[in-house]
């Protein structure tokens, strides 16, 4: 599995440096954390990697090949998948259909097979359906398979989105605040799934607000503040770094 590298990546919106020359790596088989206070630029980093925004400076490479000028769908087809901070599901589709669209990257059957309902296309759909059910089972959602996704509770919607993101077995998954708004039991369940995914060889980038959650799961943590990387390294050391503490709770004025 390839790893993801960001080198000197910047994004300027006019005079605002939303992301300012950051360098980081998301290796396969590990969970990497990206933390920082509100407005630090974490989601901008996700949008830059996934091709939603274009970079001002720097380079993003996936297993050696640059993906920094690729369009969002091309980045996705190369095996970089993501979730959205503000959950984005297909609200009219069922939970099952929402996960099934996640298999798009793996679709083999051609246009004609789809138009004329040829057996190959239908067989592929059945296979995706079975795999989607299995994924929903894993995320504890199978009983909601036929529900319209828009009607689900918030925490469930987040999990549907994650199931969809990992459906095509991407090399890298960018999780934008996956446990926001979840209780401890729910986030523990997700932590287990994240570890399993990493053990299977996926590289996970965990964008979080919740420092405790990141410290428990990640080998390497990057800390972003006002677009700059202020610390990187072992999570326990990083969270004791005075600069990080200052960014999170502020410094006292003397």
């Amino acid at each position: 599995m390839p790893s993801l590298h960001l080198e000197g990546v910047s994004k300027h919106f006019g005079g605002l440096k939303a992301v300012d020359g950051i360098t980081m790596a998301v290796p396969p088989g590990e969970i990497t954390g990206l933390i920082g206070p509100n407005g630090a630029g974490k989601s901008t980093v996700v949008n830059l990697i996934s091709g939603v925004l274009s970079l001002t400076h720097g380079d993003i490479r996936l297993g050696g090949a640059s993906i920094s000028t690729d369009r969002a769908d091309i980045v996705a087809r190369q095996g970089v998948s993501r979730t959205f901070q503000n959950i984005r599901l297909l609200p009219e589709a069922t939970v099952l259909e929402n996960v099934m669209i996640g298999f798009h990257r793996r679709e083999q059957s051609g246009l004609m097979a789809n138009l004329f309902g040829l057996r190959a296309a239908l067989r592929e759909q059945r296979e995706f359906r079975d795999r989607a059910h299995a994924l929903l089972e894993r995320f504890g959602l199978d009983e909601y398979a036929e529900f319209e996704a828009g009607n689900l509770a918030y925490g469930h919607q987040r999990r549907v989105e994650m199931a969809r993101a990992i459906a095509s077995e991407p090399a890298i998954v960018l999780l934008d605040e996956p446990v926001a708004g979840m209780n401890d039991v729910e986030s523990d369940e997700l932590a287990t799934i994240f570890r399993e995914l990493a053990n299977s060889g996926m590289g996970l980038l965990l964008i979080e607000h919740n420092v405790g959650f990141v410290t428990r799961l990640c080998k390497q943590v990057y800390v972003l503040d006002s677009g700059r990387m202020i610390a990187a390294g072992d999570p326990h050391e990083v969270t004791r770094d005075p600069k990080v503490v200052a960014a999170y709770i502020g410094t006292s004025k003397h």
Partner: protein
Amino acid sequence: MINLYYAYQPIIDFFLLSVGFGYSQQIALRAGVFSIATAGFAAIGAYAVAILVTKTGFPIVGAVVLGMVIAGGAGLVLSLPLARLRGAFQAIATLAFVQIVISLLLFAEDFTGGALGITGIPRVVNTGVLIFIVAFVMYVMWSIGRTGLGRIFDALRQEESVAASLGVNIGRYHAFAFILSGAIGGLFGGLQSLYVFQIEPHNFGFAFMVNVLTVVILGGRTTLLGPIMGAAIMAILPELARPLAEYRPAVNGVILILVITFLPNGVGDEIVFWFRRRRHAAAAANRVKVKEAKNAVTSS
């Protein structure tokens, strides 16, 4: 029974043609493309068939297929400059496309007969042919719905950014939708040509556009039943409301407003959704029952 058929045959044929144009409109809307280009595609198909058959003696079936291919090609060409447009801008650009097609038909008098149109087209299409071809198009639409293509169209309509994040090439699939819309519109345009004996640019003007849109809005944007219900309402209503014949546009308008307000998904889609919800609720209830049974076994 036979007499009843003859009395209502023109209405049935009108209904079948409307269903065809309805699918051309529907496939674009389903993919989130606010196209109203179906009138232009229909005009291209109709004129291609009329010119080929009356002026070159082209075999009729070949002319219909060629008309369909030309209209599908027009869909592809139209999709390229429109790739960056969305929503109302798309609608206006496709409206301009229809205007261009009609203007060209009016000006290229040598080929198209200008405002007088083309007459003497052999009348070879009957109810049977229409039923057969509507059934074929329905089969294709049904296939789209149960394979990955329909899901991609639905995704593009509901949340484009999600589709892109999963690797869907938005431009390519919007182009597919335009090509399909063009091919289906051109196919039924050609059939109309071979049904009405005479065509003129005016046939594919504003009234045509409004009719096709109404079929889909009344019927539904996503299900197979949608255009059928929409076209049926459009075909039957004037018959039921004969005493109100003078007020037909007003009656149509009122019904449209009522449907948009109270059945925003369209009559056909609402019916299908109702059955779907029932089926899903039954499946969910069944699952709960199975789970309880399992729990009962393990606990005892």
